[in-house]
């Protein structure tokens, strides 16, 4: 076991700000949707719009960061080890088997994460951003109208936005739970706070099953 600096400062800042914004947008958004009452409708709308703009600003920085640091390569999906990773979550994890993939600064995501995060970044989040912007800038049928986009009703926009919101919520629940599947229950969480994580060393050839006995549970 060695400590490695897996999550650089901006990555952590981006992650936690985004986490807060998504949670906040979910609460205010579902209040606007009529599913709950918390801030009051007017405040919910104001907060939701404000948080949405903050989110877009954050994303602008994050996109820049991904490309300048080549971080985007981390998210390129691969089929390699997908099966092993799935088998780990379905079987190995219960036997305290070792993680099938090693986490390093250069390879911080496992193959399942790559697929899920890439689709989040390429499909779900853009769906929410685009539908959200259309929601804000939807032109209601009005006098002296100039039709830029011939969208005649808010409904498809609102429904796309709602669908994205549900997808994000589902991701959030699964994501929160999967953070507990690290080396210890809280090690992933701690790493995302400090940047440093205990990572498994390259397993010595033939070491395999002894691993279970070698790691006393820190829970």
């Amino acid at each position, binding site marked *: 076991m060695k400590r490695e600096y897996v999550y650089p*400062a*901006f990555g952590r*800042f981006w992650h936690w*700000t985004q986490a807060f914004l998504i949670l906040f947008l979910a609460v205010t958004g579902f209040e*606007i*949707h*009529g*599913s709950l009452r918390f801030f*009051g*409708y*007017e405040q919910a*709308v*104001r907060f939701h*719009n*404000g948080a949405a*703009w*903050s989110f877009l*600003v*954050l994303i602008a*920085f994050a996109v820049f960061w991904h490309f300048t640091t080549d971080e985007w390569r981390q998210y390129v999906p691969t089929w390699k080890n997908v099966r092993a990773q799935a088998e780990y*979550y379905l079987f190995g*994890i*219960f*036997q*305290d088997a070792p993680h099938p993939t090693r986490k390093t600064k250069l390879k911080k995501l496992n193959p399942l994460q790559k697929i899920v995060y890439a689709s989040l970044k390429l499909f779900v989040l853009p769906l929410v951003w685009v539908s959200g912007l259309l929601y804000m800038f939807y032109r*209601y*049928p*009005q*006098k002296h*109208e100039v039709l830029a986009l011939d969208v*005649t*009703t*808010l*409904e498809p926009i*609102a*429904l796309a936005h*709602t*669908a994205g*919101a*549900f*997808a994000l*919520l*589902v991701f959030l*629940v*699964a994501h929160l*739970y999967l953070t*507990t599947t690290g080396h210890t229950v809280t090690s992933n969480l701690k790493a995302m706070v400090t940047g440093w994580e205990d990572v498994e060393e390259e397993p010595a050839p033939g070491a395999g099953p002894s691993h*279970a006995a070698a790691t006393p*549970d820190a829970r």
Partner: protein
Amino acid sequence: MKKILLALVGLAVAASLVVAQVRKKDAGPKPVEALRETYRTKTKPSVDHALFAQLKGPFRRPQDVTAACISCHNGRHTEVMSSSHWSWERVEYVAGKGIRAVGKKNVLNNFCIGVAGSQQSCDKCHAGYGWADASFDFSNPMNVDCLACHDNGGTYAKKTAGAGLPEPGLDLAAVARKVGRPQRENCGMCHFFGGGGNNVKHGDLDVALLDTTREVDVHMGTDGANMACVDCHRAVKHQMLGKAYSLSSMNRNRVACESCHGAVPHEDDLLNKHGYKVACQTCHIPTYAKVNATKLRWDWSTAGKLRDGKPYEEEDGDGNHAYLSIKGTFTWGKDVVPEYAWFDGTASHYLLGETFDPSRPLVLNPLGGEYDVPEAKVAPVKVHRARQIYDTKRRVLVQPKLFSAAPGDGGYWGDFDWNAAAAAGMREVGLPFSGSYGFAETEMNWPVNHMVAPKEKAVSCEECHAREGGRLAKVGGFYLPGRDRSRFLDGLGTTLLLATLGAVVVHGGARIWFRRRRHAGGK
């Protein structure tokens, strides 16, 4: 590393502040303050009519007063005579019916139904003298009643059932010497009492507006803007701005809130955006008939019951007529929450002689507009429902003669005979009557425009953006956030969410269980 982190946090904060600033408008003097200033100074008449020799009098006939007025204001009578206050009709395009002359003269309502046959009584509110029957000369300028609208002394009154002539015995010269710009009292004399009593018709035009607070009406409250009717309903050459959609059809010559307040009256764009599809009145008139009740339902079918051969009246607990032998049964409402409808400023009308389907309520003035119509906005409406007489064989609404000048003339209020009243009324409008009558359910739409509440009392977001029971629950054709959703999508989303939570519980539970077993085995 910390430095970079701090710099990034700082940058993000700065960026959010920039975004917040971009959305804030330059604070100048609020437009509404400028409006208050404009209406704070009340116009004073430029001349004192008491000093004019022409108005010394005495005037034997009211027409002599008109002649005196015209002797200085020459030509003004032609303006009045081309206005709807005189003609009681306008030539307009009626949706689906073409260009027609429609107005109080010939359009039926579901209150006192129509003027034909009852001119003697109804024409108390005509801006003229002597319109007692169809023979009235609309081209005689001497019959223009200047005083009804211009008396500033508060002494002028028209005689009940006097065909628009003044109360006998009035000192007309004294009235004439105190003329000026129309006051609330002048307009209210007719517009408050339409339908045969205070606030009966409109619901938002109540005699209480003569002296009221801004709580009731921000514009007319004496502790508010204290405005007169004609401050908004301006007249150019005696053509008043604004028209009631009980009678009018086209979207023109209207008074709109936007005329003074502009299209973007709020400092907050969130509210301004509502203005694309929501009329100002919808949020700013949460209830109408705030002081005195208005009629919501009128059932003519129960009229005609007599006690000892005489008509009688009954009052409800609030002192409003619950039953009148001459008119039937009423339901009243006070502080009423309006109904809401898409409204683009146009209305169609049931026109005399049209057949209809009596099995469904007949809407006498269907309002134009739906979500897709650019001009259409959601507007508050008083809906007045009634059961009124119709010809069951010919399936047309009946214009009955109501007012009775002498027994046996057919007037329902004297003879209490629907057959005779229907025959006499239909003869008056030149339509046949089969001799068999019934009572049909009708509805009339009265868009609500007055009794604007102080902004603190405006309708709140949740009153419309509500899943169920909101003010706009019945207004369709669009997606309203907070009210509308896709049941399928919400169901699917919730199911997926619960399934994920379930999977987490099962998976997590299994992990704990296996771990315990391992530990137990280890010992």
